[in-house]
C-alpha cells in the first residue's frame, strides 16, 4: 500500500517538475505562452525568435538548473546515509568548498587549463571529504556533531584559501564573481553538454547505490553483520556523492543547502527507504533549484539574484529549524 503511494508521490513530483520547467521556459523579459513553447520544442512552430530564445537561452538554463539540483540533492542523500547523519550535505561537510578551491585555482591562476576544471573539482571534493572523515572518525562511528564541526573547519580552511586567491588575482576576480555565488546566468548549451555526460554516469551509479545506502543507513555494525564491507561501501558511496557535488561546482559554482533541505523534504514525503528517497531527492532537487533560479532571474528583473544566494537565504533558516527540531 505505502509502496504504491510512495511510487505515486515520486512520479507526481517528476511530472510537476517537468510542468514547472515548461512554465519557467516561458518566463523572462519576453514571455512565451505555453502552447508556443510546446510547439517550438516539438518542432511544429517555425518562429525563429522563439527557437533562439528557447533552444539557446532558456532551455539550457532550465535543464542545467534541474540537473545540478538533482545532483546536489542525490549527493546530500548519499552523504546522509554514509555519515549516518541527517545534517550531512556537500556544503556543510566542506565538499563543495573543497571542490571550489581547486576550481578557483584553475580559473584564476591557470585559466589555460579550463578543461581540467571538473577533475580539479573532484580532487578538491575528495580531499575535503577525506579531511572531514579523518577528523570526525571515532571508533564508535561518526557523530553528527563532529561531522558538522569538521565541516566548519574545512569550510574555514577553504574560505581562507579562496580569500587568498581572490587577493592574489584580484584583477581577474570579476570574471569569477558569478561563479562564486552559484549563478546560472549566461549558462548555455556548452555548460549543459559539459555536465550532462557526467550527470548520467552519476545517476546510473546512484541506482546501484540504493541497496548499499539502505544497508549502511542502519549503522556500521548492522551493515557489517549483514555481510557488507562497511568501509568499502562508505568510500564508494562517498566518492559518488563527491563526484555529483563536484561536477555541479565545476559547472555553476557553490550552491548550498540543496543537499540538506531536499533529502529532508523527500524523507517527509516518502520515508527513509532509499528506493524512494533517492529518486524523490532527484526530482525535488531539480524542482527546488529550478524554482530558485527562475525566481532569481524573474522576481527582481532586470536584476538577477544568483540561485546560490537565494538558496542560502532559504536554506540557512531551514537548517536552523532542523537543528532545533532535532535537538542538536
Amino acid at each position, binding site marked *: 500500500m505505502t509502496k504504491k503511494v510512495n511510487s505515486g508521490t515520486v512520479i507526481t513530483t517528476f511530472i510537476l517538475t517537468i510542468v514547472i520547467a515548461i512554465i519557467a521556459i516561458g518566463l523572462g523579459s519576453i514571455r512565451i505562452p505555453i502552447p508556443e513553447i510546446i510547439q517550438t520544442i516539438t518542432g511544429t512552430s517555425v518562429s525563429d525568435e522563439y527557437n533562439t530564445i528557447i533552444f539557446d537561452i532558456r532551455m539550457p538554463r532550465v535543464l542545467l538548473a534541474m540537473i545540478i539540483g538533482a545532483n546536489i540533492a542525490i549527493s546530500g542523500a548519499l552523504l546522509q546515509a554514509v555519515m549516518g547523519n541527517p545534517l550531512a550535505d556537500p556544503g556543510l561537510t566542506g565538499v563543495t568548498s573543497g571542490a571550489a578551491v581547486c576550481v578557483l585555482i584553475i580559473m584564476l591562476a591557470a585559466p589555460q587549463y579550463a578543461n581540467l576544471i571538473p577533475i580539479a573539482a573532484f580532487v578538491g571534493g575528495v580531499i575535503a571529504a577525506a579531511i572531514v572523515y579523518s577528523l570526525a572518525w571515532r571508533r564508535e562511528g561518526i557523530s553528527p556533531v563532529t561531522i558538522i564541526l569538521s565541516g566548519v573547519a574545512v569550510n574555514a580552511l577553504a574560505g581562507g584559501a579562496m580569500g587568498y586567491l581572490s587577493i592574489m588575482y584580484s584583477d581577474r576576480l570579476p570574471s569569477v564573481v558569478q561563479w562564486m555565488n552559484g549563478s546560472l546566468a549566461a549558462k548555455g548549451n556548452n555548460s549543459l553538454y559539459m555536465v550532462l555526460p557526467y550527470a548520467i554516469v552519476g545517476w546510473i551509479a546512484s541506482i546501484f547505490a540504493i541497496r548499499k545506502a539502505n*544497508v549502511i*543507513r542502519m*549503522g556500521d*555494525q*548492522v551493515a*557489517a*553483520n*549483514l*555481510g557488507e564491507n562497511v568501509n568499502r561501501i562508505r568510500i564508494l558511496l562517498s566518492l559518488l556523492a563527491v563526484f555529483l557535488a563536484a561536477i555541479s561546482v565545476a559547472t555553476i559554482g557553490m550552491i548550498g543547502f540543496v543537499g540538506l533541505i531536499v533529502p529532508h523534504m523527500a524523507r517527509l514525503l516518502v520515508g527513509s*527507504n532509499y528506493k524512494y528517497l533517492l529518486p524523490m531527492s532527484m526530482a525535488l532537487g531539480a524542482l527546488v533549484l529550478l524554482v530558485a533560479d527562475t525566481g532569481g532571474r524573474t522576481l527582481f528583473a532586470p536584476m538577477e539574484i544568483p540561485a546560490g544566494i537565494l538558496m542560502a537565504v532559504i536554506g540557512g533558516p531551514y537548517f536552523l529549524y532542523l537543528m532545533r527540531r532535532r535537538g542538536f
Partner: protein
Amino acid sequence: MFTVDEISVRYDQKITLQNFSFSVEKGEILSIIGPNGSGKSTLLKAISGFTPYYEGVVQLEGINIKSMKSKQIAQKMCMLSQKNQAPPDMTVKDLVSYGRYPHKKWFERLDEEDMEIVEWAIRKTYLTAYQDRTVASLSGGESQRAWIAMALAQRPKILLLDEPTTYLDIAHQHEVLELVRELNQEMGMTVLMVLHDLNQASQYSDRIVVVQSGEKAMAGTPKEVMTQEMIRNVYRMDSEIQYRPTEIKPRIHLLKKVN
C-alpha cells in the same frame, strides 16, 4: 562448531585481549561475563570480525573466518549489539526482511521463500501483531525482539548477542532471555552472549567463560564457575551462592565490596 584460538586484540596501542582461547559447542548457550573494561565486548566484536585481531585464529565449523567472505560469514553467524536503532519509519517486517540480505545477490529481490522465512522469524519472536508497526514505536523489549527476528531471518548457525538486556527493564530482560532460551531449545540455535548480570548468566547458560583484564579467568558450567572465590577475585565482591532444591544452577547474592 566454533573455536577461538589464542586471539589477541590491541585497542589504541593497549592490549585488551591476550591469547584468548575458548570454543562453543553446537547447540549450547555460552555466556561471557566479566567486569567493565575486561574485554568481553571486544572479544565478541573480534569474533564477529568487527574489531581486528592481530594474532590467533577464529574458526567457524572448522574454517578460518579470515578466509571467508563477509557475506558467507553473515549467512552463518549473526551478531546483535546492545543497542540498535532502526530508521524511524522502518516497520518490523521491513527490518526483519533485511535479514535475508546476505542471502541475496545484489540484483536479486526477495522471493516467496524469503518472505516465508521473514514471517517465520516474526512468528518465532511473537511479533506477528506488530509486524506493520514501526520499530521505533515498540517498547525496548519488543524492539530487541524485532532485531532478534532480523537475526533469525538470516538463518544463522550461531547467534552472537552483546549484552542483549542492558538497556531493558527487568521484565523485558526476562522476556528476551526466555526467547533466547526457547530458540536454543526448540531450534538448537547455538548462542554466544555477553552478559552483565551474574544470575542471568547462571540461569540461562550451559557454560560460562569469565574474562578478567583481557584474559580468560575461568570457564565451565555455571556451577563450576559461580563460586565465592571467583566473584571475590574477579569482581572484588563478597557473595553467597545458593542452590535451590529443584535447580541445578546456582543463584548469586552479592553482599559487599571487598576492601
